[in-house]
């Protein structure tokens, strides 16, 4: 092998000039540069939650840290109730949504004809409508049905939104599953429903997991529906958090402590389901 050939095999340009490992360091620095703007507000939130109320606005007022904010927040019954309600609403909305979106996504993926087409069009139209424009009609509907400020009053709109948004993701997952397996199951003694339930659904578990995590996080973080469709009977964490803004000012330290409490479950869910969420978002 001659020298020219060896030189030709080396990557040319800027990266070639770096010392061994330099390329990796450069990429690490670039990654840090991208992550810091995203991580900084979260870090600041955590720091604020650990600062006394007097130290929030003025950095020069010492370096005192305290966990009293958490005690104060958790001593308020409404916060505990909101934590419980948010958890229940998120979990129930996820379970109900999965049931509908799995079948809806399967129909969109596998069937052709007037019914799937009409369903597809309906979902598409609802997706085109701005999210915020649903709120006022939903307020009147929940009032009329007598489910305002109840679990159902918040669950049903959430499930409706999930159906419109997540049926597409589920369709994508079923598109990736070979329908021959279901045909084989039908020949092996299953009905169409049996083939869906016993073959297509187990094959779609990674997709369903991603969907469950996305549904749960979406509902857990949702603010607008919770603000308009609930009141004192069914407090929701995202709304309760905002109630630390009152006529005497803003209690940033308490709001931050509540926000960190809200961050915990979402962080745990995301960390455990990161692999599936990424897959779901790529569909």
């Amino acid at each position, binding site marked *: 092998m001659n020298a020219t050939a060896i030189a030709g095999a080396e990557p040319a340009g800027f990266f070639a000039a770096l010392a061994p490992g330099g390329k990796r360091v450069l990429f690490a620095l670039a990654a840090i540069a991208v992550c810091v703007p995203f991580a900084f507000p979260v870090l600041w939130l955590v720091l604020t939650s650990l600062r006394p109320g007097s130290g929030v606005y003025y950095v020069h007022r010492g370096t005192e840290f305290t966990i009293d904010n958490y005690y104060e927040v958790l001593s308020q019954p409404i916060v505990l109730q909101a934590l419980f309600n948010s958890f229940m609403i998120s979990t129930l909305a996820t379970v109900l949504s999965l049931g509908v979106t799995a079948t809806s996504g399967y129909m969109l993926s596998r069937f052709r004809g007037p019914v799937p087409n009409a369903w597809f069009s309906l979902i598409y139209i609802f997706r085109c409508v701005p999210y915020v424009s649903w709120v006022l009609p939903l307020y009147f509907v929940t009032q009329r049905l007598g489910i305002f400020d109840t679990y159902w009053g918040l669950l049903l709109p959430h499930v409706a939104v999930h159906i419109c948004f997540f049926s597409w993701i589920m369709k994508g997952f079923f598109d990736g599953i*070979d329908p021959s*397996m279901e*045909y084989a*199951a*039908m*020949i*092996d*003694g299953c009905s169409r429903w049996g083939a869906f339930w016993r073959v297509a659904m187990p*094959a779609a*578990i990674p997709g369903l997991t991603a969907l469950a995590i996305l549904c749960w996080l979406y509902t857990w973080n949702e603010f607008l529906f919770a603000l308009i469709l609930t009141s004192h009977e069914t407090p929701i964490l995202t709304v309760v958090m905002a109630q630390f803004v009152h006529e005497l000012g803003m209690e940033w330290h308490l709001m931050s402590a509540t926000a960190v409490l809200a961050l915990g479950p979402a962080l745990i869910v995301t960390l455990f389901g990161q692999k599936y969420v990424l897959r779901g978002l790529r569909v």
Partner: protein
Amino acid sequence: MAEVVLTEVRKSYGPVVAVESFNLAVRDHEFVVLVGPSGCGKSTTLRMIAGLEEVSGGTIAIGGQVVNHLQPKDRDIAMVFQNYALYPHMSVRDNLAFGLRNRRMPAVDIDAAIKRAARILSIEPLLDRRPRQLSGGQQQRVALGRCIVRNPKVFLFDEPLSNLDAQLRAQMRLELKELRQRVPTTSVFVTHDQVEAMTLGDRIIVMKDGLVQQVGTPLELYRRPANRFVAGFIGSPAMNFIDVRLTAEADHLILTGAGIRFTLAGARFAGLGACIGRAICVGIRPQHLRLGAPAGGDQVGIKGPLMVSEQLGDEQNLAVRVGDQDIRVAGIDPDLKLAAGSEIEVSAPADSLHFFDDGPTGPAVRLV
């Protein structure tokens, strides 16, 4: 008894007709191959037999019972798919047992059936693996096993070898033939590969544009193709077609085309008499052409420059330019050195020629 009888079967999707007037009687234990190019309706026909597609017209009977309105599970069939269609969340053992459990077979019998199928297909060591841990060939064996355990009336195969590489495909073809001898079940096999069709089928049905072109044994199709499409589809390399004009001189028939002139004894080709003065198509199989000038009046010759030679090891194939087309010649001695561009002459027995013309049932039907 498990004959499969299709009578005037038709399938349309709105205005698009996928299969038209399909008639076929597959005898008990017979292995029938549906072959044709993509979109010819062969897979649709198979799926109609399986019950995965509704029939637009006609009847399908399995074992004497019309099954048009029966669910796939009630037709007592088993099917092997192109992508194997194994259940990824189950072990090989559970894949094999799935259909039997659905039929509420006792566990002891399921175990015995799995052992028997695994022994036949040599997949005993794979029983506790998941499909993703198997190679393509192993997955295909498991898919075959899923059919065997059920002991159905009919096996249906939907291009089961097309996902395998060439070497494995040849091996699986042999294994399928062996399997057939051990488990002689009525089978319908769909493929677009004419080699698979010729090697596996007791009878072959050639399809094109939703219509059956010819039904026959592999040799019937090869020796007496019903039309130009079948002639071109069956055989490798494909048959050479030359457009010629047919005239008569004394007691001889003369075929003239770009760069060729064949003289045929009129008495032996009396069937061509009606086409005198018209343009027809003559077909010559590459395997029937030999190097050298015609040796006597019962041979025809073609002369032209050699364009390409393809070395295959045990033989070489040639392409000879005649007029504006290349005539393929197969089975030439591989040690023979032939220079590209050199003028060569090849000849074929006049008896081996095929003649096609537009007829009442479609274009290019067989004349003699």
